[in-house]
C-alpha cells in the first residue's frame, strides 16, 4: 500500500476550475472553456502518469492511498476523508479523464453558439471532480459524496436548457430517480456500520466473512438498488431516456461512458459482499438480464436517435451488471465491457451530435437518410462504433461481450442456460436496432427537404475526438483481452482468491459463433425491414411495438403506482392538516367561545336571578359539605 500526497489534485483541479468559472461568471466567458479543457487534459496526463507509476510497482504496492483529514468522528463512527487509487479505480480515472477531455474538446465547437458555454464547461468539470471522487473514495461514505455529486452535475447538465419546461422536468426526474437509488446506498452504509462498525472498503471487506448471510443479502440488495438508480437498471431505468434532453456531449460523457456505469463500479468495488452472498448475486443477475433485454427491446422502437442510443446504453450496462453477478471471474469482464462500451458508445453519441449539428438539431431518424455522403467522417467513425457494439470481430465489443455471454452460460445448470440465452437474444436485438439506426440515418435515400436542411460535416474540433474514440473502439478490446491482461490486472482487487469461472459449458469459439449467428440474423432482418422508411412513424403497428415505443410502459407504471397516488396523498394531507390537525385546535377555541356565550345568558341583569343562583349555590354548598363529611 503506497501512500501519496498528491492524489487529491485529481479532484481539486477540476473542482476549483469549476468553482472559478461559476463565481467569475461572465468575466470568464472568453477563456472559460479553454481553462476547463486544459484542466481536464492535465488531469488525464496526471492520471496517465499515475497509471504508469502503478504498473512499475508490483503486487500490493500498486494501490495508492492518501489520507486528507478525519472527516466525521462521533463515538465509534469514524470516517476519514481519504482517497484510494488501485487497479480498479485507475481504469475509471483514465476513462473519465480521457473521454472527458475528448468531450471537452468536442464541446468547444459543439457549444460555440451557446451564450452559456462557460457555465456548461463549469458543470462538466464539476462532474469530472465528483466522478473522480466517486471512484477514488476509500470508504462508502466518501463514495457517497461523489455519488450524489455526479447526480447533481447530471441534474445541472440535463437541465442545462432548463428554460424548456420539459428539460427541467427531465432533470428533476433524473435526480429523484437517483435519490431513490441513493436511499439504497445510504441504507447499505448504515448496515455496514451497524454490522462492521466501519464504512471503509477495507474494513467492510475484512468483516464481511463474519457477517450473517441475512445482513449481507440486505446490504447487497441495497447496493444493487443504488446501482440500479445510478446505472438506469430495472426498475429505476426510466429517467435515462428523458436525460437525453441534455446537450449531446453530456449524453456521451455522463449518460453513456462514465456516470451511468458507476453502478457497475459500486458492485465491483463491493465484490466482497456479493462473493459472500449468493442471494445478492442472484438478484444482480436477474436485474442485469431483465435490463439488457428491456433496453434492447426499447431500442428497437425508438425513432429519436439519441433515445435509441440511450436504450442501447441501458441494455449494454445490463450486460455489465449481469457480468458482475456471475461471481469473481465476472467482475473483470464487466469492467472490460464497461471500458470498451465507454469508447464506442461515447463515439456514437458524439456522432449523433455531429449529425444533429449538421441537421439543425433534428433527432428523428425518420427525417434522416443517406447522410453518409454528406457526413463521411461521422459515418465512418459511427460505423466503427456500430461494428464494435454489435460485436463483430475484431472490434472491441466482440471481445468484451462474448466473454460475458460465455460466463453467463458457464454459470451452470438451468440458470446458466437461461442467462446465456437471454444474453444471446440481447446480442441479436442489439444487432437489429443498431443496424436499424445505421440504415435509417446514413443509408437509403434522404428523407429531408434539400432547401431546409444543409447537412455538412462537423469541424475538426468535433471529428477528431470522434476519430480517436473510433480507434479506441477498434483496438481496446484486443488490448484488454490479449493474454487476459485485464483479468490479471484487476485480480488483486476483484478476485483476490483467484477463483476460476465455472466449468466451460461449451468452447469459447462455439459461443462466439453462436453470437455471430444471432448478430447476422439481426442485421439481415433489420436491413430487410428498413429497405424503405416511412417519414411518419406508422400508426398500424403491433401492440408490442406500441408498448416498446412507450418504454415498455415504465413511465405509465410509475405514474399510476407512484406519482398519482403521491399527488393524491399530498393534496389529501394538505386538506387533512387544515381540517383535522388544525381543525382540532380551532374546535377548542370554538367550544370555549360558544360556552362563553352560554355563560353570558345566565348573566341576565336581574338581581333576583343572581339571588336565586346564590341560593342554589348555598344549597349545593351545604349538600356537598354534608356529603363530604358523611
Amino acid at each position: 500500500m503506497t501512500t501519496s500526497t498528491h492524489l487529491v489534485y485529481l479532484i481539486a483541479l477540476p473542482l476549483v476550475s469549476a468553482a472559478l468559472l461559476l463565481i467569475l461568471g461572465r468575466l470568464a466567458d472568453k477563456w472559460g472553456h479553454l481553462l476547463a479543457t486544459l484542466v481536464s487534459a492535465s488531469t488525464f496526463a496526471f492520471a496517465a502518469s499515475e497509471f504508469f507509476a502503478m504498473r512499475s510497482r508490483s503486487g500490493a504496492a500498486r494501490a495508492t492511498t492518501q489520507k486528507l483529514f478525519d472527516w466525521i468522528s462521533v463515538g465509534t463512527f469514524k470516517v476519514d476523508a481519504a482517497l484510494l487509487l488501485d487497479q480498479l479505480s485507475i481504469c475509471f480515472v483514465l476513462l473519465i479523464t480521457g473521454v472527458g477531455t475528448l468531450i471537452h474538446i468536442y464541446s468547444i465547437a459543439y457549444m460555440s453558439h451557446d451564450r452559456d458555454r462557460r457555465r456548461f464547461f463549469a458543470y462538466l468539470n464539476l462532474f469530472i471532480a465528483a466522478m473522480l471522487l466517486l471512484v477514488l473514495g476509500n470508504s462508502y461514505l466518501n463514495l457517497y459524496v461523489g455519488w450524489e455529486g455526479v447526480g447533481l452535475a447530471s441534474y445541472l447538465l440535463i437541465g442545462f436548457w432548463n428554460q424548456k419546461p420539459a428539460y427541467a422536468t427531465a432533470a428533476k426526474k433524473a435526480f429523484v430517480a437517483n435519490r431513490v437509488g441513493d436511499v439504497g446506498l445510504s441504507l447499505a452504509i448504515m448496515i455496514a456500520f451497524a454490522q462492521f462498525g466501519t464504512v471503509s472498503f477495507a474494513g467492510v471487506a475484512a468483516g464481511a466473512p463474519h457477517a450473517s448471510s441475512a445482513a449481507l443479502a440486505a446490504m447487497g440488495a441495497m447496493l444493487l438498488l443504488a446501482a440500479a438508480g445510478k446505472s438506469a437498471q430495472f426498475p429505476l431505468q426510466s429517467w435515462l431516456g428523458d436525460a437525453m434532453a441534455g446537450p449531446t456531449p453530456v449524453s456521451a460523457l455522463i449518460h453513456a461512458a462514465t456516470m451511468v456505469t458507476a453502478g457497475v463500479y459500486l458492485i465491483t468495488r463491493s465484490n466482497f459482499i456479493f462473493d459472500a452472498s449468493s442471494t445478492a448475486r442472484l438478484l444482480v443477475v436477474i436485474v442485469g438480464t431483465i435490463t439488457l433485454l428491456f433496453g434492447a427491446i426499447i431500442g428497437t422502437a425508438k425513432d429519436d436517435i439519441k433515445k435509441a442510443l440511450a436504450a442501447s446504453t441501458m441494455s449494454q450496462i445490463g450486460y455489465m451488471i449481469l457480468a458482475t453477478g456471475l461471481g469473481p471471474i465476472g467482475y473483470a469482464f464487466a469492467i472490460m465491457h464497461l471500458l470498451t462500451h465507454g469508447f464506442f458508445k461515447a463515439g456514437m453519441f458524439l456522432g449523433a451530435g455531429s449529425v444533429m449539428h449538421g441537421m439543425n438539431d433534428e433527432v428523428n431518424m425518420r427525417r434522416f437518410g443517406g447522410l453518409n455522403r454528406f457526413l463521411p467522417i461521422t459515418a465512418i467513425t459511427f460505423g466503427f462504433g456500430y461494428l464494435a457494439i454489435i460485436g463483430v470481430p475484431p472490434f472491441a465489443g466482440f471481445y468484451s461481450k462474448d466473454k460475458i455471454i460465455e460466463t453467463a452460460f458457464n454459470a451452470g445448470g438451468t440458470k446458466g442456460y437461461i442467462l446465456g440465452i437471454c444474453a444471446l437474444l440481447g446480442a441479436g436485438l442489439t444487432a437489429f436496432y443498431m443496424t436499424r439506426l445505421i440504415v435509417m440515418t446514413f443509408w437509403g435515400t434522404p428523407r429531408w427537404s434539400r432547401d431546409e436542411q444543409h447537412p455538412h460535416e462537423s469541424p475538426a474540433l468535433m471529428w477528431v475526438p470522434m476519430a480517436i474514440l473510433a480507434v479506441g473502439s477498434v483496438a481496446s478490446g484486443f488490448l484488454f483481452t490479449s493474454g487476459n491482461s485485464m483479468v490479471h490486472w484487476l485480480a488483486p482487487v476483484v478476485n483476490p482468491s483467484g477463483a476460476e469461472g465455472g466449468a466451460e459449458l461449451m468452447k469459447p469459439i462455439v459461443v462466439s459463433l453462436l453470437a455471430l449467428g444471432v448478430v447476422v440474423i439481426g442485421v439481415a432482418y433489420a436491413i430487410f425491414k428498413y429497405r424503405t422508411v416511412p417519414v411518419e412513424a406508422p400508426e398500424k403497428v403491433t401492440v408490442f411495438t406500441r408498448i416498446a415505443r412507450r418504454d415498455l410502459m415504465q413511465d405509465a407504471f410509475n405514474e399510476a403506482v407512484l406519482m398519482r397516488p403521491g399527488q393524491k396523498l399530498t393534496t389529501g394531507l394538505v386538506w387533512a392538516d387544515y381540517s383535522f390537525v388544525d381543525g382540532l385546535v380551532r374546535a377548542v377555541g370554538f367550544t370555549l367561545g360558544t360556552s362563553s356565550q352560554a355563560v353570558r345568558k345566565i348573566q341576565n341583569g336581574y338581581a333576583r336571578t343572581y339571588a336565586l343562583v346564590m341560593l342554589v349555590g348555598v344549597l349545593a354548598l351545604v349538600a356537598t359539605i354534608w356529603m363530604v363529611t358523611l
Partner: protein
Amino acid sequence: MSILTVLELLPLLGTLVIAFLPKSANRTIKQVAFVISLVVAAVSGVMAYRFRSGTPGFQFVESRPWIAAFHINYAVGADGIALVLILLTTILVPIVILAGWNEAEGGRWSVKTYYMLMLVLETMMIGVFAATDVFLFYVIFEAMLVPVYFLIGGYGRGERAAAALKFLLYSLFGGLLMLAALIGTYIISTNQGGGTFDITKLSMLQIDKPTQNFLFLGFFIAFAIKAPLWPFHTWLPGAAKSATGGTSVLLLGVLDKVGTYGMIRFCMTLFPDATKTFTPVIIVLAIISILYGAFLAIGQKDINSLIAFTSISHFGFITLGIFAMTSQGLSGATFYMVNHGFSTAALFLTAAWMVKRRGSSQIDDFGGLQRVTPVLAWSFFIAGLSALALPGLSSFVSEFLVLVGTFTRYPVAAIFGTLGIVLAALYVLLAVQRSLHGETKPGNENMKDLNLREKVTIAPVIAVLIFLGFYPKPVLNVINPTSTAVMQHAGASDPAVKAGK
C-alpha cells in the same frame, strides 16, 4: 462576571442606545444595531476560542441569587451544545439585520422599535441557551415570545395579527404545562432536601416512575410545540407565512431550536426513566413529522409556508436523532440544529428577497428567475440543496449521523427516515423548477439581481454550509463530549457492532 453575561448585556446596551436615538434617525439606528450585533458576534467568537472543548460540563459559569424565597439563581453556563447554539444565534443576528436592512420600513411601527425588539430578542436567545437555572430558562423561554409576537404582528404581512396571536397562545399554553411540571420538580427537590432550580442538582433527584412520566410530558409537550413536532405544528406555517424574512430566520433558525435543545437538556437529563418510557411514541411522532412535513411541503403554494413545512420535516429528523439514544444520533441532532439554522436562514433570506422583488409569495408567480437573476437563483438553489442534505454541505453530515445513529438502535425508524430524503429531493426540486426554471414569467423580466449588501449577507451563510460540510470536525469536537455525558446520564450506550472481527 461571566462572558455569557457580557453577551447578554451587550444587546440590551444597544437597545438603550437606540432608545435614546430620535425616531427619524433610521440609518443611524440600523448602523448601531448592526455594529452591536457584530460586537456580540465577536465576543462570542472570543468565548468559543476560550472554550475548552473535550471537557463535558458547564464552562463560564456564573451564579448569583435572584429570588431567594424559591432558591432561584441567575445562573448561566455553557457546555458544548449550548455553546454551538449561542454561536448560531450571535452569527445569525447580524446577518439577519444586514439582510433585512429595509425590512422594518412599511411596518406598523417605527424602525426604531423593530431594532430594539431585535436586540432584546437576541439577549433572550443567548440567555435561554446559557441558563443553567431551570426557572431562569423558563422565564426567558416564555418572555422571548413577546418580542417575536410584536415582530410578527407589527412588521409582518397578510394575516399577521391572527398568526402572531396563534403563535403566542400556542406557545404560552405549552409553557403553562411546563410550568406545572417545573413546579412539580421544584417541590420534589424541596422534599428531597433543599429546594433548587439548578439543573445539575435537579438531575440528581430520585423521582418515582409515574411522577417522572407526568413531569416529562409537561416539559416535552411544551418543547414539542416549540420545535414543532407533529401534531403540534399548526401554528408554524401561518407564522412563517406572515413574518418578515428576518423574523422567520430567527423564529425557525434559533427559537424553535430551544424546543429540541430543551428535549436534550431537560427531558433527557431530568427524567431519564420517563425518556425511556416515551421514546417509542416520540420516535413514531418524529417519523410522522419527517414524512408529513415533507408531503405538505410538496403541497404548498406559498414559498414561506413551504420552507416552514420543510422545517417541520427537519425537526422530525432532529427529534429522531435525539431519542435514538446513540452518540451519533445525539451529536448528529445537535449538529443538525446548527446546520438547519444556517440552511433555513439561507432559504428564508433568499425567499424574502424574491418575495420583496416580485411582490408576491406564491411560488407560481416566479419562474425563469435563473435567467433574470442568476446570483439570487443560485443562492436559493444552494440553500435548497442544503435543505435536501446534499453531500458536501453540512446538513448532509448531520442528517446522515442522525440516520446512522438511529439505524443502529431502531433500523425500521431509520428506513422510514431515509424515505424523507427522497421526498426532500422532490419538494426542493419542485420549488426550484417552479420558481427558477422554465420560461421567464411576465412580471419577472426586469427583476434586479442581488445587490452588494445582499451578496455580502448570503455569502458567509453559504460558506459556512460548505465548509462545515467538508470539515465538520471543529463543531463535532465541541459537541461530542457533551452528548456523551448526556447519554451516560440517561444511562444509554451505543449498541455493539453486530459482526465482531
